[in-house]
C-alpha cells in the first residue's frame, strides 16, 4: 500500500510540475536566412524561412510541381532601435516561433557593416540557439534586398548562398571565425560579399545572386570590398581558394596556356632578420594543363619547367597585387601580426603596439613548390597538327 502510494507520487512528479517545454515542429518557423540592416538609427532585421506546407513533400503524385519562385519561402522584417527589439517585433507578426538553430547564412548590409558588426555578434553569441557555425556574409547594398532575391535553382535561398560559398572557399567564414579574428590580436576578419545581379541569358535576365568580392574588415568595421581579380588573389594567399585556374601567355609568345590547380595550399611564415620583418608565403600544389596552344613539348623536363616557372610568375603577379591592395586598406586579414606574435613573441612585445602603422609596409616574398602532374590526353597543341 505504502509502496503503491510512493509510486503514485513519483509518477505524478512526471506530469504535475508542468515543466513541459515541448514544441512540435509544426509550431516552428525554421529560419534559414536572416539579414541585418541599419536605416539611420534604426535596425531592420529580416528572416526567411521555408513554408514547409508548400514544399513538395509527402504527396508524390503528379508532375508539374515547379511552382512559382518565392512561393515556398516566407520573408518578413521588422524595425526597432535595437536588434533584440526588432526581433521581438518580428515575432509579433508571426504565428510560429522563430527558431534559429537551423539558420545557415546570415547577411549583414554594407552600411551596417561599415559602422561595426560587434553588436550583432554579441547578440548571436549570447543565445545558444544561434549557432556560431552559421556562415556570415556581407551584402553589397541592402541585405534585405539581397535576401529577397528569388532563387530558382534551390528549394531554399540559403542553400544557394551556402553552396556558392562552398564552391569558392575551402572553409567558408562562419560567425565563429569572425569573432575569433576580432578578439585575436594581429588579425582582422574577412568574408565574402554578395550582390544582386541579373542572369546573363541575353536580353532580359532573371534576378539572381552572385559573389561581388571579398569584404575586408578592420577590427569589426568593413573597410572595403575587393574586386573579383583581387578577391581570388587574396583568397589564394589566405589558403582559401578552391581549385584556382590561371590563364596567361607564355613569355615571348602570344598564345595562351591554362593551368588548373587540383590542389594548392599556402603557408605563412614570418621571418625576422636583424631589425627587418618580412612575410614569406609558400605555395604548394599540383596542377594540370587544361588548354595549351603555346608550349610544344610539355612532356620533357625543360618544357614542364618552363611552364611551371610561368605559372609561378603569374601567381606571384596576381597575389602580390592583391596583398598590396589589402595592405593599403590597413586590414591584416592574413594574420601577419598574429603569426609573428606566435613565432617571435619577443619581437611582438616590442613592436606589437605599433603594428597598425607597420603593417601596410611589411614586405612579402613568395616561394613556390608546385608541380605539373597532367598535361591532358593531348601532347602537342591540336593546331600544330593541322598544317605541318
Amino acid at each position, binding site marked *: 500500500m505504502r509502496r503503491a502510494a510512493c509510486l503514485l507520487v513519483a509518477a505524478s512528479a512526471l506530469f504535475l510540475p508542468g515543466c513541459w517545454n515541448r514544441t512540435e515542429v509544426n509550431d516552428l518557423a525554421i529560419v534559414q536566412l536572416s539579414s541585418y540592416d541599419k536605416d539611420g538609427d534604426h535596425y531592420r532585421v529580416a528572416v526567411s524561412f521555408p513554408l514547409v*506546407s508548400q*514544399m513538395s513533400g509527402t504527396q508524390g503524385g503528379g508532375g508539374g510541381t515547379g511552382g512559382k519562385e518565392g512561393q515556398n519561402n516566407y520573408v518578413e522584417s521588422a524595425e526597432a532601435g535595437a536588434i533584440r527589439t526588432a526581433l521581438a517585433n518580428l515575432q509579433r507578426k508571426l504565428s510560429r516561433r522563430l527558431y534559429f538553430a537551423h539558420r545557415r547564412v546570415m547577411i549583414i548590409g554594407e552600411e551596417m557593416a561599415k559602422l561595426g558588426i560587434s553588436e550583432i555578434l554579441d547578440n548571436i553569441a549570447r543565445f545558444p540557439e544561434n549557432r556560431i557555425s552559421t556562415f556570415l556574409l556581407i551584402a553589397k547594398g541592402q541585405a534585405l534586398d539581397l535576401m529577397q532575391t528569388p532563387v530558382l535553382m534551390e528549394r531554399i535561398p540559403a542553400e544557394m548562398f551556402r553552396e556558392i560559398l562552398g564552391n569558392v572557399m575551402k572553409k567558408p567564414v562562419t560567425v565563429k571565425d569572425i569573432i575569433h579574428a576580432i578578439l585575436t590580436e594581429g588579425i582582422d576578419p574577412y568574408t565574402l560579399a554578395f550582390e544582386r545581379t541579373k542572369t546573363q541569358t541575353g536580353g532580359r535576365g532573371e534576378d539572381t545572386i552572385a559573389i561581388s568580392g571579398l569584404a575586408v574588415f578592420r577590427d569589426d568595421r568593413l573597410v572595403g570590398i575587393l574586386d573579383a581579380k583581387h578577391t581570388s588573389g587574396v583568397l589564394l594567399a589566405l589558403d582559401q581558394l578552391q581549385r584556382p585556374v590561371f590563364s596567361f601567355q607564355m613569355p615571348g609568345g602570344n598564345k595562351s596556356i591554362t593551368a588548373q590547380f587540383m590542389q594548392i595550399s599556402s603557408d605563412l611564415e614570418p621571418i625576422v632578420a636583424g631589425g627587418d620583418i618580412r612575410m614569406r608565403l609558400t605555395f604548394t600544389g599540383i596542377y594540370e594543363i587544361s588548354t595549351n596552344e603555346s608550349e610544344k613539348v610539355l612532356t620533357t623536363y625543360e618544357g614542364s619547367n618552363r611552364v611551371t616557372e610561368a605559372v609561378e610568375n603569374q601567381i606571384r603577379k596576381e597575389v602580390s597585387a592583391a596583398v598590396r591592395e589589402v595592405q593599403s586598406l590597413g586590414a591584416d586579414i592574413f594574420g601577419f601580426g598574429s603569426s609573428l606574435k606566435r613565432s617571435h613573441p619577443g619581437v611582438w612585445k616590442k613592436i606589437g603596439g605599433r603594428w597598425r602603422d607597420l603593417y601596410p609596409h611589411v614586405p612579402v616574398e613568395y616561394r613556390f613548390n608546385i608541380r605539373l602532374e597532367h598535361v591532358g590526353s593531348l601532347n602537342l597543341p591540336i593546331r600544330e597538327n593541322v598544317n605541318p
Partner: protein
Amino acid sequence: MKTPIRNRLEANRRWLEERLKDNFDVVIQDIEHRGKTVAFLVFIEGMADSEAISDHVMAPLLRQEWDHISASQRSEAGDFETVLDAVFSGNGAVFFDNTDKATIVNVRGGTRRGVEEPNSEAVIRGPREGFNENLRTNTALVRFKIQSPNLKMEAFTIGKETRTQVVLAYMEDIIDPGVLREVRERLRKIEIDGILESGYIEEFIEDDSYSPFPQFQYTERPDTAAAQLLEGRFAIFVDGSPFVLMAPVTLMELLQASEDYYERFMIGSMIRILRIAFTLLALYLPGVYVAVMTYHQDMIPTNLLLSIAAAREAIPFPTIVEALIMEVSFEALREASIRLPRTIGQAVSILGALVVGQAAVEAGIVSAPMVIIVSLTGIASFTIPRFNLAITMRMLRFPMMIMAGVFGLFGIVVGMVLITSHLSRLRSFGVPYLSGLAPASPKDKHDLFVRLPWKRQLTRNHEIAHLNRKRMTEPGRMHPEEGRS
C-alpha cells in the same frame, strides 16, 4: 497414506472399481482360465498402446506364461497409489489372484505429435528436428546429440493433480554443483495442482518474477539444448511441452542464435552485431524520435527536419500521442495475427499495411516518418532471436516513449540508467545477467559481440562453467601444402 494391495483378487477389483468409477476410458479386463478369473488388467484406453497390450500382455496371460508378459519393462507395486500413478501415466497393471502385489507393465503409447521442424525457431542452416510434447522423445533427442554417461537426467514429478514428469538434465562434469543444488531445491519446493507448460516451472524457480527481463532461455531445438548443456547450463524438460527451459542465462546469451555457430564465423559475427544494434533500436528508436522531434529539433540535419516538418504539417496530434497510437496499434496488429489461422493472418497483415500504414498517412492522421519509425522498430524487434526478450524490449519502449515525451533526451538517459542498473542487479542462478559486459570478462570475448572461429574458442563461458572451462586442446596448425598428393 498408502493402501496396501490385498491378497484377494475380488477385493482388489472392487477397490479399483470404486476409485475409478465414472471414468469411461479406464479399462478393467478380466483374464479367465478354465472359467475362473485368475487375473485382471487395468489400463487407460488411448494412453496405452493397444497393440502392446494384446501382444505383450494379453497373449502371454492367456497362455499362462506369466514370466513372458511385457518383455521390455515391468515392475512390481505393493500399494494402490503406485498402481494408480503408473496407470495414469499410460502403463498397464496386472493383478493376480492370491498375490498382494501388482505387476506394472510398460505399454505406454497413445498418439502424440511426431518430431517436426520447430515453428518458433526456424533456421536456414542447422538440424530441422524439434521437440514435441512427449518427454521421452525429447530426452532421447538430446541423448542422440550427447551420447555420454556424463549427461545426467533426473526425474521429478510435480503437480498434485497433473502428476507431470519433469526432467532436470545437466552435464555432470561441467555444471557448477552449487547451481545444481539450488535448482533441485527450487524444483522440490513447487507445490501446485497442475503444470501444463514449462512456463509454470519457469515462474516458480526464476530469481526475480518482477523483472521484465526473462531469466530463462527456452528452445524447441535439441541442438540448442545440447549446446547449452555443454556450456555448463542445466535444462528442464516438462512432459507435455515442446519447450525446454535453460539457465543460468545472460543478456548477451539471449541475443545469440544457433546459426551464429553454424555459419562461418565472419557471417555469424556480422549478423550478431547487426542484431545487437537492432535490439537497441527496438528499445530506444521511438523514444529518441519523440524526444528529438519535440525538444531537440536542432539535432536533425536541416533538410531532414524540413522534410519531416513538411510531412507533419497537417497532423492533428502531438508527436508523442502519434507515436503511442501507432505503437499500440502495431502491438495489437501483431497480437491479432498470431491468434489467427495462417490463412486469415495474411488478410490481417494486408489490412494492417493498408489501413494503418497508407490510409492513415493519406488521411493525414499520422505522418509518414512516424510510420517509418514504427515499422523500423517492429522489424528491429523481430531480429531478436528469443521471443521472450523481444517482448521485453517491446514492452519497455512504451515507458521510454513516455519519458521521452515528458523530458526529452534527458528522460531517455534516465530510462537507460534505470534499465541498466536493474540489469546489473539481476542474477540468474547466481550468474550476473550482464556477465560478459559487467563484470567484463576479457576471457569470454571470443564469443560475445563477435564469434571467433571454433579453433579459437578454447574455453567455455568463464562465468557459467567456471569449474571446467577447457573445451578443447589447441588444434595444431594446418599445412595447406601437405593436403595435395
